[in-house]
C-alpha cells in the first residue's frame, strides 16, 4: 500500500482549495510536503523548485489529515473482527490519517506494555494510531491505572469506554490524577444502572418492538455529574464520547460556559439516523449509545453547527456476522463507520443543513486536536506533519459494504448514496490511499 515507507521525498499538491481551520485558511493554495512535514504553503504556482511527485488537486479540497477520536481496532484479542492493519486501511480509505483507538480489547489496554505493543510497526498500521488507555484496571472501575506510565508509553487519553466510570469517587480521582499530567479523560456516559437489558433508545419504537429502552437521562446524568467533578480540578480535561442526547448537550454547554474544560464528539450515525430507523429489528442499527429521538438528532445538528460539538468521531465498532445476525437483544452494539463518515458529513451536514465545509473540516481536524494533544497534527501550518486528506466535495458515490477495507460488514449504510468522497489520504507525506 505504501509506495515509499520512508518519509523522504517530496510531494507537491497543486491547484486545490486548502481548508485549514486551525490556520484560518480557506483559499486556493499549493502545498509542498517534504521529509514528512509541510514544507511550504503558497498561492497557486508560487512554489519554486521541484518535487519528486506532484498531485493534481484541481476541483478538490486539501485538508489537514482527518483525526478520528474513537475507533475500535480490536487488537489485541479480537482479530476476527478487525486488526490494526485492516482497521487503519479502512481509516485511510475514509480520509483519516490518525485514529485514537479504544482500550476495550482483550486484554484491556491497561498497561504501558500494551500501549507500546500497539504502536509497534509490526502491527501494520497505515495511519497514525494513538492509543487511549484504560482508566482503571481491566476497566473494572475500581483501581486507577498508571496514568503517567501510560502517557509516557504514548497514550493520549484514558477511558473505560464500552462502559462508564460509574463511581463518583473513582471518577473524581481519575480527573484529579489526570489533571496533574494534563491527560484528557474520555467518558462513555451511560448510567448502566438505568440501562440493564436495554438494546435501543427509550421511546415509541422501543415500546412498539417490545424492547427495553435506554433513557436519555442515563447519558445526561453522567455528563452532568462529570462536568461538576471536572470543575473541581484546575486543568482537568473531560471529553464526552459519542454524545447522543439533547440533555447531555445542555450539560456540556453549561460546562463550557462556566469554563470547565469539557469537549464532546458526535458520531455520523447519531446525526444521520434516529431510533425509528431500527425498523423491524435491524441489528445494523443497534449501537450504544442507541440511535435517539428526532428531537435529539435536531439538537445534535444545531450543536454541530454552532460549535458546541468539538469533533465528529466514528465509534467504528467492527463485529463478525455471528455477533450481529442474531436476535436483536443478543446482538452486539456497534457499527463500522470509517469509510462513510466524510460522505455522511458532507451529505447531511453540508448539503442538507448548509453547514460550511470549513466547519466540517474543523470537526475532523482542529476540533479533535482540542480534545487530545497531537502536536503538529490537525493543521497544515508550515512545519506540521505531512498528514493530508484530499477530497472531492461534489463526487457522488454509493457505499458498497462488501468492498469495505474493514474486516467486518456491520453497517446500516450499505447501498447508501453519498456526496463527497475521499480522493487521497496522505500520511507523513506518503500516499496511503488513493481512490
Amino acid at each position: 500500500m505504501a509506495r515509499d515507507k520512508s518519509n523522504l521525498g517530496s510531494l507537491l499538491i497543486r491547484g486545490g482549495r486548502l481548508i485549514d481551520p486551525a490556520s484560518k485558511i480557506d483559499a486556493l493554495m499549493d502545498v509542498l510536503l517534504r521529509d514528512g512535514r509541510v514544507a511550504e504553503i503558497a498561492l497557486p504556482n508560487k512554489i519554486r523548485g521541484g518535487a519528486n511527485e506532484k498531485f493534481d488537486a484541481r476541483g478538490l479540497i486539501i485538508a489537514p489529515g482527518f483525526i478520528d477520536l474513537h475507533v475500535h481496532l480490536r487488537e489485541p484479542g479480537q482479530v476476527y473482527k478487525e486488526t490494526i492493519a485492516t482497521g487503519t486501511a479502512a481509516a485511510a480509505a475514509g480520509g483519516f490519517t490518525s485514529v485514537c483507538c479504544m482500550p476495550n480489547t482483550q486484554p484491556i489496554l491497561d498497561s504501558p506494555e500494551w500501549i507500546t505493543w500497539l504502536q509497534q510497526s509490526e502491527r501494520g498500521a497505515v495511519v497514525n494510531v494513538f492509543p487511549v488507555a484504560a482508566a482503571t484496571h481491566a476497566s473494572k472501575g475500581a483501581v486507577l491505572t498508571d496514568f503517567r506510565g501510560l502517557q509516557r508509553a504514548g497514550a493520549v487519553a484514558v477511558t473505560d469506554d464500552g462502559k462508564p466510570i460509574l463511581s463518583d469517587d473513582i471518577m473524581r480521582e481519575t480527573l484529579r490524577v489526570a489533571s496533574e499530567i494534563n491527560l484528557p479523560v474520555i467518558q462513555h456516559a451511560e448510567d448502566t444502572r438505568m440501562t440493564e437489558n436495554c438494546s435501543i433508545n427509550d421511546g415509541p419504537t422501543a415500546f412498539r418492538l417490545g424492547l427495553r429502552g435506554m433513557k436519555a437521562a442515563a447519558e445526561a446524568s453522567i455528563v452532568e455529574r462529570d462536568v461538576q467533578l471536572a470543575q473541581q480540578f484546575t486543568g482537568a480535561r473531560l471529553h464526552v464520547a459519542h454524545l447522543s442526547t439533547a440533555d447531555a448537550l445542555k450539560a456540556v454547554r453549561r460546562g463550557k460556559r462556566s469554563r470547565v474544560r469539557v469537549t464532546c464528539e458526535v458520531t455520523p450515525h447519531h446525526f444521520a439516523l434516529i431510533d425509528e430507523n431500527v425498523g423491524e429489528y435491524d441489528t445494523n442499527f443497534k449501537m450504544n449509545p442507541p440511535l435517539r429521538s428526532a428531537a435529539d438528532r435536531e439538537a445534535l445538528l444545531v450543536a454541530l453547527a454552532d460549535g458546541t460539538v468539538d469533533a465528529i468521531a466514528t465509534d467504528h465498532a467492527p463485529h463478525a456476522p455471528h455477533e450481529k445476525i442474531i436476535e436483536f437483544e443478543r446482538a452486539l452494539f456497534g457499527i463500522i463507520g470509517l469509510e462513510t463518515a466524510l460522505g455522511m458529513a458532507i451529505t447531511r451536514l453540508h448539503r442538507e443543513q448548509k453547514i460550511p465545509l470549513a466547519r466540517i473540516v474543523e470537526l475532523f481536524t482542529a476540533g479533535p486536536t482540542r480534545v487530545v494533544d497531537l502536536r503538529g497534527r490537525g493543521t497544515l501550518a508550515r512545519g506540521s506533519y505531512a498528514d493530508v486528506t484530499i477530497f472531492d466535495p461534489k463526487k457522488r458515490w454509493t457505499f458498497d459494504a462488501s468492498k469495505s477495507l474493514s474486516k467486518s460488514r456491520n453497517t446500516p449504510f450499505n447501498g447508501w448514496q453519498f456526496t463527497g468522497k475521499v480522493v487521497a489520504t496522505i500520511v507523513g507525506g506518503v500516499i496511503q490511499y488513493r481512490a
Partner: protein
Amino acid sequence: MNRIARGSLLGIEHMEAAEIVGLLKLARRMNPFKPRPLLRGKRVLLLFYEASTRTRSSFEIAAKSMGAMTTLVLSSGSSIEKGESLLDTAYTLRAVGADLIVVRHPNAGAPLLMAKHLDIPVVNAGDGMHEHPTQALLDAYTISRHKKSFKGLQVVIVGDIYHSRVARSAIHLLSKFGARITLCGPPEFLPELATSLAPGLHITRSVEEAARKADVIIVLRVQKERLAGMKIKLQDYIARYQMTMTRLKLAKRDALLMHPGPIIRGLELTWEVADCPQSVIVEEVRNGVPVRMAILAKALGRAR
C-alpha cells in the same frame, strides 16, 4: 435470503384487516372434533424456548386434528443448550423436513429473524415483550362470538401492559377494527408512551374509571417478580387494580371478562371474577384450537 414465506404469522401490527377477517372466518369452519386431513403428510415443528402449556398444546392439537405430524423441540435438552444459534437451529429443523415452524422465544423479533432466513412459514407463538399474534386472533374470535362488531366496542386492558406481548397484539388488532381501547395500570406497567402504539388509545390509572361502561375487559397476568423493586407493592397493586366483582359490575351488563392465562386467582383477579358468568377465560382457551387450525391450514396452503 430476506423474503418471508407466505403464510408466516409474525405479528398483528403489519397485517391487513382483511387478512385477519379471513382467518377468523376460516376459524369458524374449523372443528377439532371433526377431523379433516387437510395437512396430511405435513410436518409442523413446535420450537419452544420458553415454557408454555396452552399455546403449545393448542398448536399441537390444531395440527394433529388436521393430520399433520408434530415434533416438539424444547430449548432445554437440545443443541440449543450447547450454544447453537437460533438460525442454525432453524436450518436444522428445515433440513429434517419441517414444513412450518411454530416458535416461542424470549427475545423480541426472533421469529422474524427465522422467517427472513427460511423458505417455510414461521408462526410466532410469542416473542419476548413484542407480540403474541395467535392469542390476539383467538381473543378477537372469542369477542366476535359474543359481540356484533368490533367498531365502537369499549375495550379495557388492565395490568402489566409494558411487559405484555398479549397486550401489544390485542391493541394492534382491536384498533384496526375501530374498537375504543382504554389501558389501565400503574406507570411502571403502563408508561405514557404506550399511547404511541396505535391511534386513539387512552390511559387511566383508575380501574373503576376504566371498567365503567366497558364491553370487554382484558385482565393481564401480573408476575410477582416484576413487582419486586418497583414503587408499587403487591398489596397496593391488588388494592388498586385487582378485578373484583364490584369493579366488574361497573361494566356493561353483558361485558366479557377475558384473560390470556395463566391466571393467578387472588392477584390480578378474584376467585369469583374468574368463574363469573361474564368470564370467557375457558372459552378463550377452547377457541385457540380452531383459530390455530385456520392459521396452520392457511399457512400450508390447504385452506378451503
